[in-house]
């Protein structure tokens, strides 16, 4: 499951990581890994090249009007020249680009009417993502900070927020869509091939906004079905008994759920399969045993003002036991 290289995830503490990740391609708006994003990329290139050509053309005209032969300059300043160059040319060019842009958008719109999409609800929270898989039978499975999607099928994301305005941005597959209090905004996308990409909150939502990221994992449909079935099931009985005891006795279950156990809190991220995720703390720590200990003992430093109460009283051995328990929740 740990597809991402270790060295890459070292960058987690750097605030400038957005830009760096962008260069790596994983969170690049140029990646175009699905029809929606590749159309956006194409539109971007068409607009960019057209704008570059027009700019060059205007520069040429300016040069002619200053240093060109007097016959050409006369033509440019004639009424006919102004009408053609100043009105007809922009109207035709801009209208063409506008109509083309609408066409591109309309093709994205087609996904809205796709039959039987995969429905996933994503709720923005300060500062993490609640991810709820909506099954065909009306039941739901909650997870966090990671969206798994099957390739080749239309994905319908229902985007909402539990508190302030967030923005869901998964540049490899689609553009930004805001999560606005009191509304459910829908985003449709398709992933062409399997892979792991990174997303980020793209609307300032408070102090830890820059530390609110997530991963999207596109899987072949069969792999996805198997993954979802596992995600849907409860946690298997823990082998790390001491860590499990500490988890419940320390009150972790007041905020976190581990399905299949008595931890049924709904305030923080669901931890039923937290050991199987790519990252911890909403994309800021690599998922390895020592990250759990780091997060539990220093989360207010790693993600300042996050809403989890500080637990600064665990001993080193207690942290080890808790980490082992959580890491085993795969």
């Amino acid at each position: 499951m740990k597809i991402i290289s270790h060295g890459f995830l070292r960058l987690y503490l750097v605030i400038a990581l957005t830009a760096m990740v962008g260069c790596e391609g994983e969170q690049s708006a140029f990646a175009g890994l699905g029809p929606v994003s590749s159309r956006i990329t194409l539109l971007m290139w068409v607009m960019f090249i057209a704008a570059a050509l027009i700019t060059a053309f205007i520069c040429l005209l300016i040069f002619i009007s200053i240093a060109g032969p007097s016959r050409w300059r006369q033509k440019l300043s004639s009424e006919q020249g102004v009408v053609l160059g100043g009105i007809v040319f922009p109207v035709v060019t801009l209208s063409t680009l506008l109509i083309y842009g609408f066409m591109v958008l309309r093709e994205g719109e087609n996904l809205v009417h796709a039959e039987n999409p995969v429905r996933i609800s994503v709720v923005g929270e300060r500062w993490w993502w609640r991810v709820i898989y909506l099954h065909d039978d009306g039941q739901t499975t909650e997870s966090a900070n990671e969206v798994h999607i099957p390739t080749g099928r239309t994905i319908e994301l229902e985007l909402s927020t539990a508190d302030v305005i967030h923005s869901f941005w998964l540049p490899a597959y689609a553009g930004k869509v805001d999560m606005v209090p009191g509304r459910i905004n829908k985003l449709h996308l398709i992933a062409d091939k399997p892979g792991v990409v990174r997303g980020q909150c793209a609307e300032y939502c408070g102090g830890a906004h820059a530390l609110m990221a997530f991963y999207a994992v596109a899987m072949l449909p069969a792999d996805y079905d198997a993954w979802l079935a596992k995600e849907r099931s409860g946690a298997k009985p823990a082998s790390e008994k001491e860590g499990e005891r500490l988890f419940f006795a320390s009150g972790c279950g007041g905020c976190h759920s581990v399905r299949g156990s008595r931890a049924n809190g709904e305030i923080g991220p669901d931890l039923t399969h937290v050991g199987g995720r790519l990252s911890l703390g909403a994309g800021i720590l690599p998922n390895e045993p020592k990250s759990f200990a780091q997060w539990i003992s220093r989360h207010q430093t790693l993600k300042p003002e996050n809403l989890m109460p500080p637990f600064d009283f665990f001993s080193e051995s207690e942290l080890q036991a808790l980490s082992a328990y959580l890491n085993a929740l795969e």
Partner: protein
Amino acid sequence: MMEWVRRYWRFLLLWTLGLLAGGIALALMGAYSGILNIAASAGHPAWLESFLQLGKERSVKFNSRAIAPPALEPAELVPLGAAHFQGTCAICHGSPLQPVNPIFGHMLPHPPDLQRHATHWTREQLFWIARHGLQLTGMPAWSGQNRDDEVWAVVAFLEALPSMTEADYRRYASGHSKTQDYADAQLVSAGRPRFDLTACSRCHDTADAPPTSPYIPRIGGQEEAYLKRALHDFQDDMRQSGFMEPVAGDLDDEHIERLASYYAAQRPAFRQPARPSSADESELGRQLAEQGDRTRKIPACNACHGRKGREDYPRLAGQSAQYIGQQLHIWRQGGRDKTPHGAMMAVVAKRMTEQQVAAAASFFANQPPWTERSPRP
């Protein structure tokens, strides 16, 4: 007149400055020469006495003018204030049970006999003096930060003190603690039996009696690790209490071990609280305890304070609503977040509404205390 000033202003200015400089020089010379006798044994001449009294009276009145006293319930607060007074104040001020210790009787100024002098001050003024202390008199400031609630308990006691009989005072100040008559040989080696500051039962519960005030926690049957942690926190000035800090400061580690183990082994009896809660309130309290409040991000109380909680988390079942409510208020005002455990609870307490504080306090007050001991890991 103006003409005169205009003509002589240089002359006046010079004289004023000269007198000022001379005065300062004289004061410095006086201090440096040591001619001023500040011996407590020397006493104050009458004029200096009245001057100092005037300064003190005016300062207390002026500085206490903005204090708004809360409603004080004597039955709940007097035992608390009395036990603290007997333990820490009576050595200087005397009490109906003990005259002023001759050593402190030779302080200057003499610590006043509060059975007579407490009536001299208003409620606000008593609070101000007990809370802030008085410079140059030996009167210390309150030792617990942000614990005005404790100072008010002492004020309630001081208001009741002048009309208190010796028997009443003994009852309040000794609580459930007892002194026994020693045999001669014991008297010789152990000294006169007295109500010691560290006698827990002066205030706290015993096997067959509740604490002497609802603002005092029930510690019989409490988690051992929690009791130890609490006493160490008081000792290290990490948890604030003018009542408990001097007591914990007087204990050593071995005493703390033994006391925690003793109280953890007690089996508390349940007494229905004096203030029953309404149906709405008990429902709200039950919800908070069992489910929490997702919209305000408050986890269920029982996630930590339930039966399988950590040994260093306190048990709340059977504590009085007043005590739980008061501690939650202290947390909400930032008065209990110096320790790691306190910092964690502070986050939760600050998310609660006043109504939720009252409901949660009342819910746990209505729960019978648990009798089983937690298993040792």
